[in-house]
């Protein structure tokens, strides 16, 4: 037996192997830690710089649109027709009305369909059919908008020989549908199973449970998803360029069977004209459009946050 009380006989008191530091040394960086910490700091700085860059880009675009747009906007700009002789000048009232009508029609088509698809996925779909529908939604979501627009072009414009607002609405509905269906599906999945069980225990039928219990508790999320999808659709331009036309739409009218002016289309055509007056009109239109879209985004976020805290999610 070795001397039991001699601590130096304990293995722990052997000199540390390798580069392990002396346990009693001060707790400042030892070994290669100073270099490793520096590497970490540099890369963390790079990530922070990337985030700053994104924020700066966002601010830059918003600032530029606001600066140029606000110098153009007046009551008259928002409420009068464009000048039919001097293209690119005058007001944008038909474009504002047209955008609202076209997006409203698209929403009226996409929202019920999207919600029904979501209900199908959560309440009714089997393994196989659920997979097919989810796959189709994913594909739909991944379709380039220009392809969607050409599909409607082949389906409608080639037949009627007229570009029209409702053709654009249909294309926008196809773009909105997967967004609404996906988000609603996720919201419906969050509805606690206990709610369903409670409804089942009361002996009500499935559709009564869905309409009476499940949908109301998911309504906030569905409305948010719809607002965000509508905001996205309002900014879409490819379907409008391909399917809609300004030629008939230069005065305020409410008939989507004909071409309707819209804000994205106005911006696009103004930029193509290229003359300074048209560029001014483009900035003014861009400001109105962007303000509406960003307001919808902020509003949807606030609404969702309120709704969450109300439901205690």
């Amino acid at each position, binding site marked *: *037996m*070795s*001397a039991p009380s001699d601590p*130096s006989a304990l*293995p722990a008191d052997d000199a540390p192997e390798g580069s392990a530091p002396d*346990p009693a040394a001060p707790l*400042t960086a*030892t*070994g290669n830690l100073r270099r490793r*910490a520096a590497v970490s700091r540099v890369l963390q700085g790079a990530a922070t710089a990337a985030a700053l860059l994104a924020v700066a880009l966002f601010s830059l675009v918003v600032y530029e649109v606001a600066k140029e747009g606000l110098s153009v906007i007046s009551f008259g700009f928002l409420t009068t027709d464009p000048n039919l002789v001097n293209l690119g000048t005058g007001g944008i009232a038909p474009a504002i009305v047209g955008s609202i009508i076209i997006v409203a029609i698209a929403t009226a088509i996409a929202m019920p369909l999207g919600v029904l698809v979501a209900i199908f996925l959560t309440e009714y779909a089997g393994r196989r059919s659920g997979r097919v529908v989810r796959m189709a939604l994913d594909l739909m979501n991944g379709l380039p908008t220009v392809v969607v627009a050409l599909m409607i072009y082949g389906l409608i414009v080639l037949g009627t020989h007229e570009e029209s607002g409702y053709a654009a609405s249909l294309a926008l509905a196809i773009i909105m549908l997967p967004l609404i269906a996906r988000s609603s599906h996720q919201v419906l999945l969050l509805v606690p199973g206990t709610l369903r069980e409670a409804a089942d225990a009361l002996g009500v039928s499935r559709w009564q449970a869905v309409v009476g219990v499940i949908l109301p508790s998911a309504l906030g999320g569905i409305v948010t998803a719809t607002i965000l999808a509508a905001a996205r659709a309002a900014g879409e331009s490819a379907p409008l360029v391909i399917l809609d036309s300004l030629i008939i739409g230069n005065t305020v009218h409410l008939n989507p069977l004909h071409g309707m002016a819209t804000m994205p289309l106005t911006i696009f055509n103004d930029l193509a004209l290229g003359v300074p007056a048209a560029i001014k009109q483009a900035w003014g239109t861009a400001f109105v459009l962007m303000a509406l879209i960003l307001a919808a985004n902020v509003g949807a976020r606030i609404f969702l946050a309120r709704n969450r805290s109300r439901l205690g999610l």
Partner: protein
Amino acid sequence: MTSGGGGLGSGTETVSPRVRIQSATTPQRAPAPELGGVAEQVINRASVFDVRGVTVSYGTKQALAPFTMKIYRNLVTALIGPSGCGKTTFLRSLNRMNDSVPSFRIEGKVLYHGHDIYGAGVNRIEVRRRIGMVFQKPNPFPKSIYDNIAWAPRNLGMKENLDERVERALRDAALWDEVKDRLRDPALGLSGGQQQRLCIARAIAVEPDVLLLDEPASALDPISTLSIEELMHELKPRYTLVIVTHNMQQAARVADRTAFFSLDENRVGTLIEYDDTEAIFMRPADQRTRDYVTGRFG
């Protein structure tokens, strides 16, 4: 008998005669060689942690009332008590794992070999490098068995003889024989008990000074639990071990010293009693400790 104590700086002192190394709690095991079978031997021990008036709070909620204790070198110290009593909070404060909790605040001093862990100029990565930790749920990285062990040594620049280092760590964790033929296989393919021993191997591969174990066996079956406990005995001569456990038999089996925490009337975690494990279980000084270890509470 010499009274060298190791000359380890300000953490060294002669502790009370009550600190005795005991084999009584583990009669089935041969006495560790350094003890020479002398159970009542009073020796000098260096304290690794000297906790002075430490209190912990999260925001406005106090989690631990001020307390003072020393944790001694090459002993297993168990922290026991009912859930919510702050034992895990205290353990995670010892290597600054709580720093990432936004509202975490600690007052008092946690001296480690005489240096304040929360002092100015202290590098928390260095702290964790010297004070390793094993968690409640086995958390191997989604890498191979080999890379789980080799990852930290590579970071630390311990690249020489890496294969030997990995083998030694696995041997020390009593895992080598089970995995030596499949070092390149994913670690997530191991059983729960093997994963936890892998996590221990991973922690000792960087040669820490202290190993903190947060209920290391609570997610494991009885046989795996036993192997983890045996492992702790084998590691004791070379490391200082601090273990949180809610299992009193486990504390009795593995620990030399035991600290009992409980909740006071304001539901604030409080250190009730800290003594040799034998004393805590056989002749506790405090009524609350007695109630707890005899199963009347908690």
